[in-house]
């Protein structure tokens, strides 16, 4: 009786430990130091959009990655989850690596939310390729490339 039960029990234990492994993913620093501080948050980024306007809901309605030199560039970031304190940052860079602008928005979302970042240049944008990268609590969560013609 025991010998017939044992293999099934072993499989159950292996499956259970596998599931635990998924729940306890390593949240240490990428460099392996294991010293990264992961804030008590369960916020995640669910959508990033670029465009030349946002609505009252802070969301880019019409996506584009081509802009003119006089346009304001908007990026909307959709987040899901709840946190008493989360920081969302956008780093805009030019093709040569120059940082064009960097902005941080501190939020305490209690459900789905949109955060918009925008940049404008009264002198007109230099034409070329740009990139905007987003960080949630200091960790990269996505980026978008765009071009100004």
């Amino acid at each position, binding site marked *: 009786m025991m010998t017939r039960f044992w293999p099934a029990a072993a499989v159950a234990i292996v499956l259970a430990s596998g599931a635990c492994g998924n729940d306890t993913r390593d949240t240490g620093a990428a460099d392996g130091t294991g010293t990264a501080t992961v804030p008590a948050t369960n916020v995640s980024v669910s959508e990033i959009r670029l465009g030349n306007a946002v609505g009252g809901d802070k969301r880019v309605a019409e996506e584009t990655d081509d802009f003119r030199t006089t346009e304001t560039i908007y990026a909307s970031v959709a987040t899901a989850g709840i946190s008493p304190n989360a920081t969302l940052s956008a780093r805009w860079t030019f093709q040569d690596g120059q940082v064009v*602008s960097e902005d941080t928005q501190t*939020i305490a979302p209690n459900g789905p939310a949109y955060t918009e970042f925008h940049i404008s*240049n009264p002198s007109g944008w230099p034409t070329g390729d740009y990139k905007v990268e987003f960080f949630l609590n200091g960790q990269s969560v996505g980026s978008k490339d765009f071009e100004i013609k």
Partner: protein
Amino acid sequence: MGLLDNLFGGKKDKPRADFSNVQSGSSSTAPAPKSAPYAAPSKRTYTVVAGDSLSKIAKREYGDAQKWPVIFEANRDKISNPDRIHPGQVLTIPPAS
């Protein structure tokens, strides 16, 4: 190397793009975090009565007469001689360090 650079156009310094006038901003539909509640400084005052000394006050306030210098330092503007305090003087009693 300089000749090759000249021939092939290498190492010519392009003027860096100027982003000094860039304006930026952000906003969110998510509420802002609540700031930590203001913690009022835990300073108290004490009005000196006849027969008081700094060590007596320290004993009463901190449970340790040896901490009189804490009160003395916090009241330098009112006390020039720690052995001479006067009834009616209002002393600041800082938190015990």
